[in-house]
């Protein structure tokens, strides 16, 4: 089974029906959107009889993607005055203005005799009465219909916000079942919205914190299958895996890839002392990056590969530090109340997400890489382990409830602290890690 079906996505520009002129349809995410932008996703036109159900499902997923960001409000189809029955027909702007749709997405879906799916779409700025960007056509197999829908939604999101999208992405995580004192865990992957869930390991050993490679083709995770925590690398297409080459009688955990995908940074515990190491996957050459009697763990590279953020209790409590990629010049960046852990560098490079423990509560927060402008985004009994969406605008994390029946679930929140949502997957789950945007 393949995690990412190779999507031979053919993207073509379509001739603009009128003139391509960028209108004022725009959301500035950084300013914190209070009022979602009303948008109409017209049911996509089925160009062949067998395309009807795909057309319906694709329009629905596009609408859910956009509304799920909290930045858009989808106008109910029952309110529509115009029906879009032909992809090339002129847009009746007055009809869309009348229902206060600021953006309009139209599209058409065709399925060829050999099972190829083509999806065309256009985005219109209703109040400027013109298209926003060019029409585009995506082609793939019918099995890829969700990915194509996500790609259309990414285009719409991107054109209106000026940011990269994140809908056509996967999340690798740990599925959990069983009682709290004998929890069974397995590595699994899913689309960002919880669909297409695929187990990647069985539940025979404790597994922790899977992480995607920068190319999304491999994952790292920690497994207790030998009885001791050890890091494995898995190819997500073939599901083949291997243990990383580390010294015997040590415990290794908390791995992450460097942006080059060829270097792994991780923690190694030996003689009760946990430090951070770097491993070159090609040569198996290992370099020690920290050498203190304190706990150093949870390393995460900056997207340019020059620096590493990590947590350490060298000051007496867990705090965040940034050091050069060779381990030199560590600088503490967290100075607020409480304990800070699990730092993760944003793919945009501008922020570091972290877990904070203070006065009996756990928070997900973000801080600038120089330690300024700390902001807490969430609060609960136990929130931990943030991961960034590919565009650095949304954070997914683990939220665990208290008590004997307590269980973890995956949640997401945007970096303004709004739009807190539970990822709709059945059962308990923890330790999410977002893939890059898929090709």
């Amino acid at each position, binding site marked *: 089974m393949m995690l990412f079906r190779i999507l031979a996505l053919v993207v073509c520009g379509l001739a603009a029906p009128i003139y391509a002129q960028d209108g004022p349809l725009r959301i500035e995410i950084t300013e914190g959107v209070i009022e979602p932008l009303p948008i109409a996703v017209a049911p996509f036109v089925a160009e062949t009889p067998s395309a009807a159900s795909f057309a319906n499902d694709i329009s629905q997923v596009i609408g859910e993607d956009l509304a799920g960001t909290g930045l858009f409000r989808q106008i109910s189809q029952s309110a529509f005055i115009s029906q879009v029955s032909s992809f090339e027909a002129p847009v009746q702007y007055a009809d869309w203005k009348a229902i206060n749709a600021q953006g309009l997405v139209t599209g058409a879906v065709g399925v060829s005799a050999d099972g190829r799916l083509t999806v065309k779409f256009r985005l219109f700025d209703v109040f400027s009465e013109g298209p926003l960007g060019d029409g585009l056509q995506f082609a793939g197999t019918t099995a890829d219909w969700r990915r194509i829908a996500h790609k259309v939604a990414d285009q719409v999101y991107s054109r209106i916000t000026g940011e990269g999208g994140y809908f056509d992405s996967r999340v690798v995580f740990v599925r959990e079942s069983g*009682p709290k*004192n004998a929890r069974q865990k397995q590595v699994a992957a899913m689309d960002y919205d919880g669909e297409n869930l695929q187990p990647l390991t069985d539940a*025979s050993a*404790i597994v922790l914190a899977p992480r995607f490679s920068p190319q999304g083709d491999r994952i790292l995770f920690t497994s*207790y299958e030998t*009885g001791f925590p050890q890091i494995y690398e898995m190819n997500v297409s073939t599901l083949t895996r291997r243990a990383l080459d580390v010294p015997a009688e040590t415990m290794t955990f908390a791995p992450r890839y460097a942006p080059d995908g060829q270097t792994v940074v991780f923690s190694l515990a030996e003689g009760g002392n946990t430090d951070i190491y770097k491993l070159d996957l090609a040569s198996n050459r290992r370099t020690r990056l920290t050498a203190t009697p304190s706990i150093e*763990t949870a390393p995460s590279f900056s997207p340019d590969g020059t620096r590493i953020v990590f947590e350490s209790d060298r000051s007496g409590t867990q705090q965040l530090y940034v050091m050069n990629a060779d381990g030199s010049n560590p600088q503490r960046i967290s100075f607020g109340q409480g304990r800070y*852990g*699990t730092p993760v560098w944003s793919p945009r490079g501008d922020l570091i997400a972290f877990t904070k423990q203070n006065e009996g509560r756990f928070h997900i927060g973000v801080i600038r890489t120089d330690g300024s402008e700390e902001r807490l985004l969430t609060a609960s009994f136990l929130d931990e382990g943030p991961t960034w969406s590919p565009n650095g605008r949304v954070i997914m994390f683990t939220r665990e409830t208290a008590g004997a029946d307590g269980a973890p679930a995956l949640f997401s929140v945007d970096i303004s602290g709004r739009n807190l949502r539970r990822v709709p997957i059945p059962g308990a789950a923890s330790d999410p890690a977002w893939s890059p945007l898929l090709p």
Partner: protein
Amino acid sequence: MTHLTKVALLLGVLALAACSTSADRFGTDPSGGFGADGIASSGIGDPTSAGYFQQQVGDRVLFVVDTSDLTPQAQDTLRGQAQFLMSNAGYTAIIEGHADERGTREYNIALGARRATAVQDFLVSQGVAPNRLRTVSYGKERPLEVCSVESCYAQNRRAVTVLGAGVGS
């Protein structure tokens, strides 16, 4: 150890393996790790048995929040463990370090490693051969008690010495 003792010990192990494992150090262990191979508690009257070690000597010590310091009570327990291990040279042991749920996952693994090593170092200081001991940390992955209050957390911040058979065997 004589050949005969070795055989006796092996038979004992086999007999114990036939018992249902109480494995109460972290409940039923599905991990397939050393936990599943732990020796069941039975025959606690026999001062050379794993059951005696677990229940009479005491197989675990508890820790204060976010520390790996051995309390005086923990040291008493560990002196007993060291004495047992030195009198029963056929056993090896894996020391499992654990943390409560009030910490982040990675840190708790590191903290559990510290706790297990604190126990190992103490046992070695009492004369137990280092090559008979190994450590592993489960972090917060295997709580013993499942409630979310301090009375449970206190039981979960632990290091458990789990006996195995056959040094050098």
